[in-house]
């Protein structure tokens, strides 16, 4: 029994036209003042619904079907709407994921803070302003007094999140619900924000409910944790105990799927079963003669690169500058340098992991290699021959087939209006890799088997699949071109951790089998750790460090790399609790 918050048997239902959907079932939760309680689970587990239920803002037509929420021993369910409205902000506050959208862009932060403070107390404008400055100082904003009159867009992401936290603290709440407070932030900023939350919990005795999908974050700051799956509580307890010695199979599997920073594993083990597999008759639907073996043979049949000594891809002194439109016809061109003096080599059959925070130019590098972006200087050599840059690369250039790309967002990388068969057969048809329609169909079905999808999937449309399944289809599309070189731009950042583990396993498997060379781009050090043989670190368009992955993770040379490594939340932290 927590003395701050007690949730007992909470059940939330959503009536839909497909029948009633139970989002949360029989959830118990308790919280002491000053405690940080983590809610962790994959998408669809009901984490955010719990937050909404506590604060009384469940979206219509959802409703609380059973259970009770007690704050300080007082039931919140019996409150009228008006009383609840008073309570929100006064006793319970919320911090949202995206600081970009949770502040009103048209008001200064002074207006927003003062308005909130005066809404909940009788303070005069002057007093409220004083208080706002104090709060901003407390949340670690430098020059609080001077910056009070600024608008949200004048602050950086991390600073903005500090303002949001100050806004949540305005009314001295007893409980703050933080919904993915650091997901939109870079690791360095994430570290600072988490430290701030920890400190506020200690100094003010505020109880926090921290909703996140990131087990690293949970390990870093929470006292206790609830693991959720499909709206049900799987396991609950002290963080160190739950993450250190998970008892439930699901928690164990979840932990195993988290990429580790301290050692490189051959494959992720103990992967959770995929979402309820397509019904059995679906699995029996086959294209005649299509099989995983056929796909494997077919992919290997293409001309294989003779493993030369030299690098497959070699980038020399690459510069990319983006020019904005000229203000006047005779005005000077304004440019931002997205990449400067980048030199990289990718060795045959190896994976080069490119690490960088947002805005570091990782994606620009990928786009320059595939010819979507025209570099302003430098050269790119592929298999020893220089690649024509940007639009100069002819449409029938051999590299168009040999270099393929897997994109970040599986929801936008597949054309929603075409069937999976049409999507995957596009490269086969375009590069004339099949002699007949029947052969093309057979290849598509086989490659689907290869990426562990039922062959029947080829008849469906992308929206009928989940994110992980879509990413498999995207990998299949890249594979059928028989590439020698694969570029993966954050291929798993939109996916849940267990799905991420499956996709990473798949990529490793394919890489080993077909001897692909891969340029693997990610902001997540642990993922890069698991995938790469070589590592390159980018910051603000400049190359900070390159080297073998083993050396890099054992002893990074550059200060920036060392800092990055330290700031990445890791499961190793559990030991410290």
């Amino acid at each position, binding site marked *: 029994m927590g003395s701050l918050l007690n949730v007992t048997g909470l059940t939330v239902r959503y009536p839909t*036209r*497909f029948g009633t959907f139970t989002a949360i079932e029989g959830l118990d939760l308790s919280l002491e003042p000053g405690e940080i309680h983590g809610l962790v689970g994959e998408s669809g587990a009901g984490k955010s619904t719990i937050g909404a239920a506590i604060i009384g803002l469940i979206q219509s037509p959802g409703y609380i079907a059973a259970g009770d929420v007690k704050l300080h021993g007082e039931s919140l369910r019996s409150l009228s709407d008006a009383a609840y409205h008073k309570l929100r902000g006064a006793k319970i506050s919320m911090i949202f994921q995206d600081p970009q959208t949770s502040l009103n862009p048209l008001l200064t932060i002074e207006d927003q803070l003062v308005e909130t403070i005066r809404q909940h107390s009788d303070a005069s404008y002057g007093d409220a302003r004083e208080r706002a400055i104090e709060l901003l100082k407390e949340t670690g904003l430098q020059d609080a007094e001077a910056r009070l009159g600024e608008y949200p867009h004048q602050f950086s992401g991390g600073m903005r999140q500090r303002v949001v936290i100050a806004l949540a603290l305005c009314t001295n709440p007893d409980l703050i619900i933080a919904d993915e407070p650091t997901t939109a932030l870079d690791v360095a900023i994430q570290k600072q924000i988490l430290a701030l939350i920890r400190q506020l919990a200690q100094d003010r005795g505020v109880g926090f409910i921290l909703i996140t999908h990131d087990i690293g974050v949970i390990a870093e700051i929470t006292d206790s944790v609830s693991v959720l799956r499909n709206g049900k509580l799987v396991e609950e307890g002290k963080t160190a105990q739950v993450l250190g010695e998970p008892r439930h199979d699901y928690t164990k599997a979840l932990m195993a799927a988290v990429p580790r920073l301290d050692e490189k594993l051959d494959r992720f083990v103990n992967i959770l079963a995929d979402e309820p597999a397509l019904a059995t008759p679906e699995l029996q639907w086959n294209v005649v003669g299509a099989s995983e073996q056929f796909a494997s043979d077919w992919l290997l049949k293409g001309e294989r690169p003779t493993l030369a000594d030299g690098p497959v891809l070699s980038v020399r002194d690459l510069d990319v500058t983006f020019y904005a439109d000229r203000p006047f016809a005779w005005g000077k061109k304004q440019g931002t340098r997205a990449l400067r003096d980048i030199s990289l080599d990718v060795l045959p059959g190896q994976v080069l992991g490119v690490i960088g925070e947002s805005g570091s130019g990782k994606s620009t590098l990928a786009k320059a290699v*595939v*010819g*979507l972006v025209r570099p302003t200087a430098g050269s790119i050599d592929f298999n020893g021959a220089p690649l024509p840059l940007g639009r100069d*690369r*002819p*449409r*029938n*250039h051999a590299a*168009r*087939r040999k*270099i*393929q*790309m897997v*994109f*970040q*967002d599986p929801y*936008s*990388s*597949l*054309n*929603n*209006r*075409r069937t999976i068969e049409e999507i995957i057969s*596009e*490269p086969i048809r*375009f*590069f004339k890799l099949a002699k007949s329609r029947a052969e093309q169909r057979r290849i598509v079905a086989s490659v689907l088997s290869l990426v562990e999808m039922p062959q029947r999937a080829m008849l469906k449309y992308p929206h009928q699949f989940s994110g992980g399944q879509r990413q498999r289809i995207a990998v299949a*599309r890249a594979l059928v*071109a028989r590439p020698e070189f694969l570029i993966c731009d954050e291929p798993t950042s939109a996916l849940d951790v267990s799905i991420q583990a499956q996709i990473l396993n798949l990529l490793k498997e394919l890489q080993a089998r077909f001897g692909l060379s891969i340029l693997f781009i990610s902001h997540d050090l642990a993922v890069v750790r698991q995938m790469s043989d070589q590592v390159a670190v980018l910051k603000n368009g400049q190359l900070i460090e390159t080297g073998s992955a083993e050396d890099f993770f054992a002893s990074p040379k550059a200060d920036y790399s060392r800092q990055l490594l330290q700031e990445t939340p890791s499961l190793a932290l559990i030991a410290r609790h």
Partner: protein
Amino acid sequence: MLSYWRRIRIENELLYLFLHNRVAQVAAVIATVAIFGAFFAPLIASTNPHDLASFDILDSFLPPAWTEDGDTRFLIGTDDQGRDLLSAILYGTRLSLLVGLSSVAFAAVLGTSLGLAAGYLGGRFDAVVMRIADVQLSLPAILTALLVDGVARGILPREQHEDLLLIVLTIAIGLSLWVNFARVARASTFVERNKEYVQAAEIMGQHPVRIMLVAILPNILGPLMVIGTIDLAVAILLEATLSFLGVGVPADQPSLGTLIRIGTEYIFSGEWWIVIFPSMTLILMIISVNILGDFFRTVLNPRLR
């Protein structure tokens, strides 16, 4: 079979929302009746108003059948020429819909291809096309139509003019409507062209025309179809207006607009039915097509749902 119907009813987004929207259902019924009536006009109508021999000037200005002086042969009365008004409305709707549909089709093809190319290629082509669109937009639709009609009358010899009247009318109306399609197509293309599936096609080295038509076009059809339904109503109205002004369809083949124009001359002398019934038909048809267009806009745009 029944369970199949039930499943389809629940799973099909469009059908489900349609079955839960009374207004859209009523609109669909009216639009269907109008289209059906127009299509089968020769079978339904008791007389052929285009055939001068089929009506008698002695029957002119007969009020609807249910009034004192009514004649049972003419359910809703006759006009100044003695034409059966019901038959005239059926044939007139047919003409109005024909002109409306073909001019919208013309505008859609012209506007969509220009907008798609402008959105995808960007740069100078985009600037030129959109400036032309701006100029077009600054001219009222009715002026564009009058301009085209006037030019056509000047160029074409008199006898050919009668034959080509419908085509001229279609082009005139189409030219004043293409801007909507171009703007929407361009804006949607801007959104789509930065998506990764388009980049995937570009990386492969596919031809830009193929990327535009095969990859992007199907993804921007939704909003364009909505523009289509709304512009259909606009086109029918425009045709009615032009016919009302006397520059539309030939006088011996009255469209709804012509009928209304004739009717207004007699509104103060007590022959109200000549103007009321064609007007009601036009209003109901336009409103129902507009409601359907709005329904599609709401259904196809998840943000408005």
